[in-house]
């Protein structure tokens, strides 16, 4: 009798263990690169129309992001009103809401600033924060201890050198500060993206050559040679610019450099005329010098033909926001800061 009872109890216990069922799993929190594709948020997903930041009296452009914490990012951008350009700062929460009205962070206050300062990028340094920006005279450097009040250097950090392939003024600088204090600065000139490096921001920059096998200096990223590939025009076949360089250490033990950039196709014949298409491209590198460009754009210009000047911010391991310059209305009368996201397979409510 005892044995029968034990047998019955064991059977009941075994049956009880198997009554629950669970949904299929194994695909949660999987690793994902930042390589998109990205999707522009629309006016149904943002509190105030298609742009995250807009100003009816001015054009807001060239955003650069600086992570503050897991939910907040400081966004530095150019405010262009007439001929005057200045750099403003706003704080964005959860990628879609501006915390407070933006404030001016750096104004053209020195003689060599000329008509203005703009296209900033900001990085954290040992002493606080460093900002690179462009002026008509060259690239400038400003420093700050709190990220809000900035002090500009007395002269340009780097000016164009035609002998080094920089045939137009340098613009849209971006920087990465390595853990050892060394810096990599990338910038745009003559429709390509170039780079320079130094052991710190207080010592002169050395120009980098992305391919030392050739006699002339090669750009980090240049317009593609695939201008006419099987009848299709490559997304970066015309020009590249507005770089944003970021370094990321993977748990696999490598540093990956990601370079987001504006891309412009070679002119395409349309209805007897010609036009080009804009897109956002991505190039990656494991050494910060030799970059491989992604085959396709990470954000196409179909939804917004004015999209350019990307800056990425990840608020977690699996999601990346991409702040870009773009149109705030369909006619393009007002341009501001838009935001795209990857993965782009879900829609967001208007209120974060």
């Amino acid at each position, binding site marked *: 009798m005892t044995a029968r009872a034990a047998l019955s109890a064991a059977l009941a216990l075994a049956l009880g263990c198997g009554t629950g069922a669970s949904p299929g799993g194994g695909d949660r929190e999987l690793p994902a690169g930042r390589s998109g594709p990205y999707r522009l948020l629309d006016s149904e997903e943002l509190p105030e129309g298609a742009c995250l930041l807009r100003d009816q009296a001015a054009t807001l452009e060239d955003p650069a992001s600086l992570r503050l914490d897991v939910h907040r990012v400081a966004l530095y951008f150019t405010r262009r009103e007439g001929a005057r350009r200045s750099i403003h700062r706003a704080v964005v929460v959860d990628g879609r809401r501006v915390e407070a009205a933006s404030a001016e962070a750096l104004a053209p206050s020195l003689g060599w600033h000329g008509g203005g300062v703009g296209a900033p990028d900001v990085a954290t340094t040992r002493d606080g924060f460093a900002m690179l920006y462009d002026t008509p005279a060259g690239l400038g450097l400003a420093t700050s201890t709190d990220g809000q009040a900035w002090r500009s250097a007395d002269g340009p950090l780097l000016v164009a050198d035609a002998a080094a392939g920089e045939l137009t003024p340098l613009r849209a600088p971006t920087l990465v500060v390595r853990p050892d204090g060394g810096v990599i600065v990338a910038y745009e000139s003559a429709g390509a993206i170039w780079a320079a490096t130094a052991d710190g921001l207080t010592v002169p920059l050395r120009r980098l050559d992305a391919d030392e096998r050739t006699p002339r200096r090669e750009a980090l990223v240049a317009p593609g040679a695939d201008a006419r590939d099987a009848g299709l025009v490559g997304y970066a076949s015309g020009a590249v610019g507005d770089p944003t360089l970021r370094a990321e250490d993977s*748990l696999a033990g490598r540093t990956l450099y990601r370079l987001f950039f504006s891309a412009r196709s070679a002119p395409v014949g349309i209805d007897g005329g010609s036009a080009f298409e804009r897109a956002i491209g991505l190039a990656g590198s494991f050494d910060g010098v030799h970059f491989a460009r992604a085959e396709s754009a990470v954000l196409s210009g179909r939804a917004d033909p004015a999209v350019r000047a990307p800056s990425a911010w990840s608020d977690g391991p699996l999601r990346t926001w991409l702040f870009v310059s773009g149109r705030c209305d369909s006619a393009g009368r007002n341009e501001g800061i838009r935001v795209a996201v990857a993965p782009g397979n879900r829609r967001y409510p208007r209120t974060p």
Partner: protein
Amino acid sequence: MRALPALALALALAPSAARANPLDMYGFLSRSTSLGGAVTADVGDVSAGYYNPAGLARLRAFRAELGYLHASPSLSTDGRDNRVDASRGFIGGLVAPGRIFRLPFAFGLAVHVPDDRLSQVRALTQTQPRWELYSVRLQRLYIAASLAISPWRWLRLGAGLVFMASTRGGFDISGRISATQPANSALTHGVDADLTAVRYLQAGAQVDLPANVTVGAAFRDEFRLDTQLDANLQGQIYVGGINDPRALVIPGSYGLRSRVLTAFQPRQVVLGAVWRMAPNLRVMADLMWVQWSRYENPTASLDVSLDLTIPASVPGLRQPSVPQPAAREAMRFRDTFVPRVGMELTTPVGRHTLAFRLGYHFDPSPAPAQPGLTNFIDASRHVAAFGMGITLRRLGAALPGTVSLDVHAAMQLLDSRSIVKADPNDPVGDYLATGTVLNLGTTLAVGFE
């Protein structure tokens, strides 16, 4: 007992709904699992139906076993748990011995019935990371039917069949689609699915040698399970209302053929030995060769066709091109050798017996580095197992034989593995994979005199 060979033959020849095999990963029944699976030469209970069918011939009386297995993976990439499904379900079977031509003979049935789902199929792109040897692969129903004989006292031979089901299916849609008024489309559809049986062979031998040593060998053949899905869409596309005589009508057809390798078991050859060092102590070891190199890329292969008959009256309209299927990378899995060791110590407690068991095996990962588009995640496993059992004898008239209760706990520790990509723009990028799997189970066995 004469009916048993006929029953076994019938089971072997009949189509069955049984499917693939989670037992390679977690073991079968508590005693064998807690010995690290190193039981090819030693097995002599219902688990012989999986480990070595020859072991069935050790039994001289009917034996039935029922247990439960719960394996709970905690597998992560970059430190985040990927929530891989647990494998859990009932395990058990029976052994019915007898004599045939005066030779000891036994029929065995071994079953694993998952209680979450009987089978699972997922068609993922090759770029999507997945724990290739876990997850879907372990959500299977398993049924094995085996026969064993002992032509001499020192030799046992066994063979059996394991049953799988292959799925072929399709659906057809026909009718009229209005491109301008989709709600007015008129479509009919039909679904046709077919389950066909797949069988594979397993066989084994055990040879008793002098000095209390037994050696064994087992063979499990390869099987592959394909899921094929065909879709055909046939009809007319109306630009305009479907009842509008002025609407532009474009007849056409769209075909999609998909083939997915939903399950694969590599061919396995195992050699093992057991040494009964003392009446109450035995140690055992196995070495298993696993032919993973024949594993094909399991991601879906697609063949898409589109055929539209565009009227000549619409010269500007052209048939859109269909996307070309993405090239699938070769798997390049490697054959592996899996060493296993186990030890069992028994001690009498009155007329009953208490057993303590330890086991270990190292299972090298067959998955190669994944520098390209594929993300078949896996890492080498160290599996340490522990188990206990009690065998009660002569419990009364209702149970004149034995009742055994065994429990096991096995922990898989996966090596940390860095997956580094050749392309810095890889859509997934570098990541670090690691994890553990806790495998718990119990088995209740009833042996008759």
